């Protein structure tokens, strides 16, 4: 594993003389490979390695009996700091209802995660409304309704509607009138390069003014995570991220890439298909997972 590899390299280097920024490169190469194999984006890895190379020849490493473990500690802490350092939550606005909008690529887990958020808020004593604003995908509205019914939560859907913005506006009026809070909007999956559909999100956002736009991303996403997240953030604007399918064995380097390129926090992770499987995101646990 990475720890053993680094230990071997650094002990040999020290045996040959002083550790310097020049010769530490061999050890950092192993860190680089570990991060790339974990699906952290190539350019993000490059910047990361540059940032830690001076720390990697610092006092703790030079003086340590286990320099390999010291380097891992530095890498680990740098990963934690990069991902926000601590847990981040969804804030309730001063004027209800809180409006949440789920966005992301096709199949990332938006509909299921919308249901999970509703479940969480209901357990918190609130009265959420799920909004079936995916008027595209076959049976998308039915899917959300089934989830809502299983939770005993209200779901706004309009089978005759053919425009997402209209559904959101109608749903919001009802939520406001009946004191439902939060309003959780499920949108259709879309490509970040689909100009028309990205524009649709911009229009919905203008009219509905969501407090929290959540980018739902698959934990197994590869190098494309950077392009995708950047486009969603620049074209639409996102407030936070939920990483789904973390119950698999993907290392999840996409989490680092997405955080790095958007600066937005990962707030939750999805750890299964059932609606109670949403957990808060812990940067230190993610750092360990990425390093393998």
């Amino acid at each position, binding site marked *: 594993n990475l720890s053993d590899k680094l230990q071997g390299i650094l002990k040999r280097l020290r045996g040959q003389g002083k550790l310097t920024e020049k010769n530490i490169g061999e050890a950092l190469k192993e860190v680089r*490979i570990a991060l*790339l*194999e*974990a*699906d952290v*984006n*190539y350019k993000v890895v490059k910047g990361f390695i540059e940032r830690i190379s001076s720390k990697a020849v610092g006092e703790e490493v030079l003086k340590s009996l286990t320099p390999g473990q010291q380097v891992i500690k530095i890498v680990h802490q740098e990963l934690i700091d990069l991902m926000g350092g601590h847990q981040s939550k969804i804030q309730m606005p001063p004027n209800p209802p809180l409006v949440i909008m789920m966005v992301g*690529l*096709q*199949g*990332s*887990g938006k509909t299921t995660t919308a249901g999970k958020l509703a479940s969480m808020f209901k357990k918190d004593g609130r009265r959420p409304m799920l909004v079936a604003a995916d008027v*595209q*995908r*076959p*049976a*998308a509205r*039915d*899917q959300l*309704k*089934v*989830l809502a019914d*299983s939770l005993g939560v209200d779901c706004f859907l309009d089978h005759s509607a053919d425009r997402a913005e209209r559904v959101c506006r109608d749903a919001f009026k009802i939520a406001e009138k009946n004191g439902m809070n939060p309003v959780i909007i499920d949108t259709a999956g879309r*490509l*970040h*390069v689909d100009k028309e559909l990205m524009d649709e999100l911009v229009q919905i956002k203008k009219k509905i003014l969501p407090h929290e736009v959540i980018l739902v991303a*698959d934990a*197994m*996403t*590869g*190098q*494309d995570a950077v*392009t*995708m997240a950047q486009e969603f953030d620049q074209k639409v604007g996102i407030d936070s991220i939920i990483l789904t*399918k973390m*119950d*698999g*064995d*993907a*290392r999840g*380097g*996409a989490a680092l890439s997405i955080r790095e390129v958007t600066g937005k926090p990962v707030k939750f992770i999805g750890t299964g*298909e059932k609606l109670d499987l949403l957990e808060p995101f812990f940067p230190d646990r993610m750092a360990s997972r990425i390093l393998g």
Partner: protein
Amino acid sequence: ALLWNRPNLSPELIEELEETLILADCGVQTSSLIITRLKERYENERDVPSCDILKAVILEILQKAYAPLNTASFKPFVMMVLGVNGVGKTTTIAKMANRLTDQGRHVILIAGDTFRAAAIEQLQIWADSINVKLIKHQIGSDPSAVVFDGIQAARTRGTDCVIVDTAGRLHTKKNLVAELEKMKKVMGREIQGAPHETLLVLDATTGQNAIQQAREFHQKIGLTGIALTKLDGTAKGGIIISIANELSIPVKLIGIGEGIDDLRDFDPHLFVDALFE
């Protein structure tokens, strides 16, 4: 554009190639293998532009695994479609059924996802849109029972092709993989050699975990092909090169959109060209 239209292999070029391959999700090991082979061949082909050699190296890996989808090799031809959650199984099945129907073949679909909310409804809408029969039971029923029913129906109707949809499942979930094995056994008992095609659906945006998915499903179930979806996005799907190299599983189909016609046969040449666009 890469520096590579000139026939030389400078360190700058090598680094640029490595970046291109890794950004395409080829992975560290496979990118390194490709570059090693490029360097070896370059020694004997110094007047050939390095880009041509590079494409040839990758094509060689893909072509070793290559095999087309041949649904006419048995009747009824039984195809099982599996993969992790949300990759595009159900949509790809609808596209395949549409293509076969256009070719004048008689198709039956089997709603083998008896778990996920509105999964059966989703496939029913697709089936209705292309006028194809869907065999289904209630949500929560045993998927092997639906498979059994669907195959009986195919036999009595003289169906050419049966396609079985399955619920998304992570390769790490033992009981869910066991469920697929049971469905496969039922098919094999009822129709000789079934399933004749076991297709793994992979999302082109997936990173290195795709290789683990292919390894696990191949070991436990046995895969005969891959459908690579969502190539209409910006992800390149380089993971299929590692899969071809390590497991010899061929990509047979690609998904290039959400519409019923957005299905193409895999073309290794076009794929390799797209890697460097």
